[in-house]
Structure formats: structure tokens, C-alpha cells
């Protein structure tokens, strides 16, 4: 009942904004163009990291590879290229939201994103927003959210980029992008393809990573069209299809494979006048998987979900205050071998406010309430602030309540030895964080501390009949520290940049007082880039600390340190035709390491890439 009242209040606020103020914040086109504008406008106290993949010419195969080398996010990968889940700030795999052009695309079936089913290359912007963000990005934004964004540019000439690559373990890659922007229309189209036999040797044994082949195709298209001086129409499409085998481990052979298809479509109409932006968006998110327990046989298990989203957003500035209100409707349906067809209707009301008190001090307040057909969702909130002490030193802080909804599997699973539980509630999480930034000349640094407490964690466990089912039993706690430092130096023809990140996290189950499994306490990444004229060199070094592999912490997997490098050279054959050749060596020191117990990761390997731009 209370939920309904809050929902009503939120929606009333949206429909009749009564605040008035000076109209001194003008709206720029870029704000209208960006589908995930909230990431800029309503992130006063959040730590946001931009991931740049441009220094590397050899593209990252998957988002796992890109983010694990450039951030302190830990990935648990069941063998290279196989199922990969993220742990951000020590939280669980379903507590990191992946946001595509402003829309949460975590699987409705599992609640997670498999980071090996997202291309590591081909998005114009990849950003990590650390910490809770459920008020804006909904379920799962507890540890943080990963934002994949397409950006179009008006008034830009035709540009085409074509790349081909070949590397160890019979890996073929191809990528293509084409973009063009006239005064009224901006278009961006891209495609990536990777095919790898992935049969690297397990060092120290006579075994190989058999049954590990994978093949991915990723297609992106986006366009913005200026309908009139006050209206913009935007369109985004992403299509991904993956065909993967699940590899051998040291102790077991396998012959299973997994095919998945994901399609994401978004169309958005925005109207802007004065200090007000109205936008209406329609999105359709489709996921489908087929799991073949034996790829030599025709039997498979499958699951799919359809998510239709309709959003109305009203954003308005009142002097130094910006108010953003949102009404949203989702209709989600899921079906599969082990789920009887299930539907969910979801209504969302949310209000985001950011206030710039002075050039030094600003704050934000967010509220969100959902109403659902199959369980009740909590009111979530966030309050954050930013204090610019001086030109070098900034302090940000936030406090928020966030949540993770039960998935369709959690609620409706019905299969051998397992049963869903329809009386589950969402996991709820309270958190605090503070970030200090200090920038000086070419030196940038950030240090964050945080504390997260999540209750009603959904945990699957067997009952005395041996039937597994989920319950809201666990309570987990994370706290930790993150330090990031970067340095850029330009010295005539030499350019050096250094980027170091370290994280320390303690992540434990409050009930048992044991560490959560597969969360390293320490992670350190170091990226160095050196450019001299047309030559470039990148060095990358990643240390991942040891992890426990059993919930009673009785066994552990050793930490590892892996280094990679790339050498590239640009050739300017003509003014409008650029060629770049790159060679990369991964795992330079041929380190024998495991990310998941009994699943060795690739030994030293080489890749060559030819990239043309015209």
C-alpha cells in the first residue's frame, strides 16, 4: 500500500512540475543527442571511469578482456571465452548492471550479463559508474553499472574503418565501421566478427583447451535525425549472436555448446524548448539461448525473454536546479524448457534532482518506486554531493539504497532437482561512498572508500529432499578502497601515459563470517602507453589476488600476474587513407594461471592486426 502511495506521489510530481526558477541553464544539442544523458546530468557524487580502447589497435575480443585489463572489476571466466561474470566492489554477478544507451540489459533469466557475449570493441563510449545506481539504472546497479553508449556526430565527413586480424589458436577477426554526419542526419554503422578455435595448450600438461571454440558476430547501427529546431529522432540497434563451446577443464572433458542471440532496439523522440526536454522512448530487448549438452546431438534446452519498454522523460531546469522525472512501463515475458511462460508488468516512477548551489558545491537527490505484478519492490533513493575544494581537489560522496530483483529463473524455475520460489523479495542494499580526486598538471588521482550492506540476498540451496530452491536468506557486506592514478606527458614527439589502478575489497557473508568465493581482495592493473611519431607501444600488467573457491574458505586459488604488450605503426599512404599495423603479445611471460579452479587460461600468444581508415 505504501508503495502505491509513493508511486502516486512520484507520478503526480512528474505530471505537474510546480517549481519555478530562473532559466539560466541552456540546453545544448549534445545533451539531447545522448540517450544516456543522466550519466552526465545526475551523477554529482558518483565516480565514473571512462574506458578507452583506442590506444590498442588489436581490439579486445570481449568486454571481459577490455574491462579486466583496464579496471579493477574482477571477472570470473570459466575458461577463456566461456561464461564470464563480473564482480564490482566485491558484489555478486547479478549486482552489476550493464546499461546499453540508457537501458539496463542484464538478462531477465539470470539477472546477470555474460561479459563474453558483449563485444569489447565498437561502442563509442564505455564507462564504469561505480557504486549504487538503482534509482537511475534499476535492478542490479549495486556494485555499479557499465555503460555502453553510441554517439553520433553531426557535420562530420564520411569515415570508414576496416580492420582484419589473425592470431594464435586460429583466431580471425574483422571489424568495420562507417559513420557520417550531415547537418540534420548522423549515422553510425558497425560490425565485428571474431572466430577462434581457442585451443591453447594447458601449460605443464599434455592437454589442450578442447571444445573451447567460439564465434561472435556483433552489429551496431545508430542514427540521429533533427526533425526540426525543437525535435530530434534517434534510433539505436544492436544485434549479437554467439556460438560457443564450453571447454574442457583439467579434470573433465565436455562436448556441450551454447548459442545465444540478443537484439536490442531503441527509438527515442525528444522535444526541447527553453529549459524543458520531453522525450518518449520505446525499446525492445530480446534474448534467446540454446544450450546443447552434447553438440553432436540435436537435443537442446532453451530460454528466451522479451522486454518491451516505454518511457516518458521530462527534464527541466530551474536556474541552478535540474529536475528529471520519469514514467516507465515494462512488459517482460520469459519462457523456456524449465520456465513455464511468465509475464511481468512493471511501472516505474522516478524523480532525479540536481542542484548546483555554487561553482564549488552541488548535490543530487533521487527517488524511484516500482510497482510490479509479481512481487513488491522497495522505494530506492540516492543522495550525493560534490565539493570542489580548489582547482585541484574535489570531494564526492553518496549514500544510496539499491536493489536487485528476483529473476525469472529465481521465481519460476521448474526442472530436475530445482524449483523457483514465487514468494521472493528483491535483494536490498544500503551503501555509502566517498571519493577524493586530486589533479595536478599532468597527474590525476582518485581514491575512494565504500561500504555496502546487502540484505535479503537470494541464495539457492537444497532442502532435506535434495530439491534446490532460492530464498532471501543471505546478508553480505563489502567494504574497500580504490586508488587510481594517471599521468600524461607530452614531450615534443614523445607521448607517455600511465594509468594505474588498485583495489582492496573485503567481501563477506555476514551470517557465516566467511569471504565470498571468487572475490580477490587485491587487484592491480597498470597500463602504459608510449607514442613516438608514428610508432606506438602499450604495456599492460594485471595482478589478481588469490580467491577462495569454497564457501567455507577451505580452499583457494592462487593469485596471478599477467602482462601483455602491443607494438603498432601508422602508415600515412595518402591524406585520406591511413593504415595501421599492430602486433600484440598476450601473457608475455607465459604464465600458467587459472581464473577458475581447474580451468587454465591461455599461454603466451600473438596477434596481428591490420587497420585501415579512409
Amino acid at each position, binding site marked *: 500500500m505504501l508503495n502505491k502511495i509513493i508511486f502516486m506521489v512520484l507520478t503526480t510530481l512528474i505530471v505537474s512540475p510546480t517549481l519555478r526558477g530562473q532559466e539560466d541553464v541552456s540546453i545544448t544539442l549534445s545533451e539531447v543527442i545522448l540517450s544516456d544523458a543522466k550519466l552526465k546530468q545526475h551523477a554529482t557524487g558518483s565516480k565514473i571511469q571512462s574506458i578507452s580502447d583506442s590506444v590498442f589497435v588489436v581490439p579486445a575480443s570481449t568486454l571481459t578482456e577490455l574491462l579486466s585489463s583496464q579496471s579493477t572489476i574482477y571477472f570470473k571466466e570459466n575458461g577463456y571465452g566461456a561464461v564470464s561474470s563480473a564482480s564490482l566492489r566485491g558484489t555478486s554477478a547479478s549486482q552489476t548492471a550493464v546499461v546499453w544507451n540508457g537501458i539496463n540489459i542484464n538478462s531477465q533469466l539470470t539477472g546477470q550479463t555474460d561479459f563474453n557475449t558483449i563485444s569489447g570493441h565498437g561502442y563509442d563510449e564505455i564507462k564504469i559508474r561505480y557504486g549504487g545506481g538503482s534509482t537511475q539504472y534499476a535492478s542490479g546497479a549495486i556494485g555499479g553499472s557499465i555503460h555502453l553508449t553510441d554517439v553520433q556526430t553531426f557535420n562530420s565527413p564520411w569515415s570508414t574503418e576496416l580492420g582484419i586480424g589473425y592470431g594464435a589458436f586460429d583466431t580471425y577477426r574483422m571489424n568495420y565501421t562507417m559513420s557520417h554526419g550531415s547537418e540534420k542526419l548522423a549515422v553510425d554503422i558497425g560490425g565485428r566478427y571474431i572466430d577462434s578455435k581457442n585451443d591453447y595448450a594447458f601449460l605443464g600438461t599434455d592437454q589442450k583447451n578442447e571444445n573451447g571454440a567460439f564465434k561472435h558476430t556483433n552489429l551496431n547501427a545508430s542514427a540521429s535525425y533533427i526533425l526540426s529546431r525543437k525535435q530530434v529522432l534517434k534510433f539505436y540497434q544492436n544485434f549479437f549472436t554467439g556460438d560457443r563451446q564450453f571447454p574442457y*577443464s583439467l*579434470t*573433465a572433458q565436455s562436448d556441450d555448446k551454447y548459442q545465444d542471440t540478443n537484439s536490442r532496439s531503441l527509438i527515442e523522440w525528444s522535444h526541447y524548448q527553453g529549459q524543458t526536454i520531453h522525450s518518449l522512448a520505446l525499446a525492445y530487448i530480446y534474448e534467446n539461448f540454446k544450450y546443447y549438452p552434447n553438440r553432436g546431438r540435436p*537435443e537442446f534446452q532453451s530460454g528466451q525473454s522479451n522486454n518491451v519498454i516505454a518511457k516518458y522523460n521530462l527534464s527541466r531546469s530551474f536556474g541552478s536546479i535540474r529536475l528529471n522525472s520519469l514514467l516507465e512501463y515494462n512488459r517482460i515475458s520469459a519462457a523456456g524448457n524449465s520456465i513455464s511462460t511468465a509475464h511481468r508488468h512493471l511501472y516505474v516512477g522516478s524523480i532525479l534532482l540536481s542542484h548546483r548551489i555554487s561553482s564549488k558545491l552541488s548535490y543530487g537527490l533521487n527517488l524511484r518506486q516500482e510497482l510490479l505484478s509479481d512481487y513488491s519492490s522497495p522505494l530506492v533513493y540516492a543522495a550525493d554531493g560534490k565539493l570542489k575544494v580548489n582547482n585541484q581537489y574535489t570531494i564526492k560522496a553518496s549514500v544510496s539504497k539499491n536493489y536487485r530483483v528476483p529473476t525469472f529463473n529465481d521465481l519460476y524455475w521448474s526442472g530436475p532437482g530445482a*524449483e523457483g520460489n514465487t514468494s521472493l523479495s528483491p535483494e536490498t542494499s544500503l551503501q555509502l561512498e566517498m571519493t577524493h580526486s586530486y589533479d595536478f598538471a599532468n597527474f590525476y588521482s582518485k581514491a575512494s572508500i565504500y561500504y555496502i550492506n546487502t540484505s535479503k540476498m537470494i541464495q539457492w540451496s537444497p*532442502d532435506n529432499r535434495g530439491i534446490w530452491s532460492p530464498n532471501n536468506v543471505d546478508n553480505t557486506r563489502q567494504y574497500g578502497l580504490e586508488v587510481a592514478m594517471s599521468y600524461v606527458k607530452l614531450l615534443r614527439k614523445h607521448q607517455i601515459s600511465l594509468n594505474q589502478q588498485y583495489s582492496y575489497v573485503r567481501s563477506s557473508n555476514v551470517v557465516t563470517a566467511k569471504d565470498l568465493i571468487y572475490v580477490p581482495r587485491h587487484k592491480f592493473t597498470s597500463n602504459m602507453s608510449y607514442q613516438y611519431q608514428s610508432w606506438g607501444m602499450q604495456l599492460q600488467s594485471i595482478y589478481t589476488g588469490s580467491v577462495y573457491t*569454497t*564457501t567455507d574458505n577451505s580452499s*583457494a586459488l592462487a593469485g596471478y600476474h599477467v602482462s601483455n604488450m602491443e607494438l603498432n605503426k601508422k602508415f600515412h599512404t595518402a591524406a585520406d587513407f591511413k593504415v595501421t599495423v599492430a602486433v600484440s603479445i598476450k601473457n608475455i611471460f607465459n604464465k600458467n594461471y587459472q581464473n577458475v579452479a581447474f580451468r587454465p587460461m591461455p599461454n603466451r600468444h600473438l596477434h596481428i592486426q591490420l587497420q585501415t581508415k579512409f
Partner: protein
Amino acid sequence: MSLLGRCLIDTCTYNYKLNFNMIKVNYLFAAIICFTLAWSSCSKDDELEMEMMMEIEEETEEEVLPYANGILVSNEGPFASGTGTVTYIAEDLSMKSDDIFKAVNGTDLGNVVQSIGFHEDDAYIIANVSNTINIVDRGTFESKGLISEGLNNPRFFISVNNKGYVSNWGDPADETDDYIAIINLRDYSISGTIPVDFGPEKMVSKDNTLYVALQGAFGQNNKVVVINTVTDNVESEISVGDVPNDMVLDSDEYLWVMGGGAPSFTGAETAGSLSKVNTETNTVENAFEFEVTEHPSQLNFDDGILYYYLAGAVYELPTVGMTLPVKTMIEDVSFYEMVVNDGMLYGTNAKDFSSKGELTVYDLNTMSSVATIEVGIIPGGIYFN
């Protein structure tokens, strides 16, 4: 010597584990203890420990069979990856050793250690997902052989008529490729196969007759096949209740078959059942029906009484009993495996299936627990050496 030997193996196993955990200080501490006890050079390098364990084994092998008397618990090991283990527990429950196969042989048993079968001095350790059987000397646990060909989803081993028989599911999606593999017990080779209907699981023998319960793999079946081990042919099939998950032969040579019944997720839930089979005529003489929602398992026989597990409780039924019992003997337990042996009841708790499980021992006279011992991950088999 045997105690010292075991102590050494324990210390070194511990040492290995600590090393694995990268806790260098404790590792050194354990290494020093190892060194002083063994008067032999414990590892300077990370990889020498295994050799050391082998050395200890060599020292002890002539005089003692360290695992000859006591309990062996097979632990399936973590679901997704990794290896199963075998835990040894002394007969008087005073000490135990974890992962004795690796301690002795330096290698892993394989993924999902399903069960152990015995023949004379040999123990046959089945790794279901790895499709292997490691054969060890049951007293020393020294490896004697490995069967890695000809198995497909192996489940259980039994020796009858001087031959070994291993039930195999084949591909669970294929209901027609299930078989019993026949093992040559001299050279550990597979000498033949006997095709059976789908889902062969537990086996019991009487003289030269082999009874195989067709539980139905991931699905459901409802038969017991009778195999003549002289000809290695299927002689007959006995229809029993759905999902025969366990069988015992009582002292009057009646075969008791526990049917779990079809579970509720199938949409056609059926009751559990207990069938009494006359092994002279191979026909069902009597059958007890449970309630539709009751799915019993873990059938045992000891001293004229049948014991079984149902929904967190243990029940007992004398073989001469006329009706199913309503009184529980042990309550509020969660047994992944339960075995009754010589007046004692042994039950394992797999907890959350991703941490070490426990074995609890009960005295059948008092029905009270005598001891609880930590074992390995997902303890699924209990055997007496």
C-alpha cells in the same frame, strides 16, 4: 609408525593446502614441522611436496596398510570444475585424512567422484564426469591402474563372478545407449558391454546373478534388470515402482527395492514405493506404497531391519513388518548419503554443496549421534575398509 606416517601425510597435505592459499608464513611453519618429523628434506621449492609424500609412502608401505581399517568417504567435489576426493577416517573415529588419493599418488581423481566399488584388495573409484575409474590398493591407496576408455557416465561398480560390472548412463539425452561395462579384474580392461534400458544405477548381486536398478538417469524408469553373469545376458526384467534409487539384499535373500517415485516437477508426480522381490522367482512378492508426495531413498539393511530416509528423517521397518512406519528414528537431518553398518548409522550432510561436508555417526541403539567429522565437498559415498 603408522600413526607417525599418517601424521606426516596429514601435515604435508596441510602444507600443500597452505601453499595453495599462498600463506607463506604458515607454509614455512608447516614445512618446518614436516621436516623435523620426517628427517627428510621437505620442499624447498613449491613443487617438491608431492615427491616427499611419495617418499613417506615408500617408507610405510612395507610395514603398514595405512587405510586398511576404517571408513572411506568419497566426496564428489565441486559441481562445475575440480576434482572429487576420498577422505579416510580411522575405525575408532579418532583421526582422519583428507584427499588420500592425491596425498599418495600426487594426482587428482577427476570430476564428480560418484562412488567406490571393491574387489579383493582393489578399490575402483569412479569419476562420473571425467569418465574414468582409478584403481587403487584399498590398504595403501597406491594407484594400480586407470580405466579411461569405454566408459560413458559411469555410476557404480560391483564385482560378481570374478568380473567387474559398471553401470553407465551413456548420453543422458539418449535413452537407448545405456549399458553395463564388464571389467576384466586382472588387467583392468573393458571386456564387453551389456546394453540395458535407460538409467542403470545401483547394483546388487546374489551368487552369480546381478540385479541392476534402472532409476532412469535424469528422467524416470521403473525396472530392475536381472543379469546372468555366467552368460552376461539379461535374463529378465522386474517391474517395480517409479525411480528405483536403492536396493538391498536381506539375510533371507529377498531383494528390497526402494522406488523414489516421480518428482513433482515432472507434472505427473507418483508415490514412492518399497518392493520385496523374491530372488528365486524374480517376482515382486509384496509392495508398500508411500503417499504421492513422499519420495524415500537411502535403503539399508542391518540385523533384520530396513532403514530408509524420507524428508529429513530416518525410518526403520523390520523385514517382517506389515505396514510402513510412521514413527521417525532420527529427525531434522539432511542426509546426502546414508549407510547403516553393524549397529551404526552414518549420514553425510553436503551443506551448501560448495563447502566441506560432514559425516555424522549415530548409534542405532540410542539413535543419538556419536561423532561428527568434517569430510570433503559433497560427500556422496560411505564405505568400510
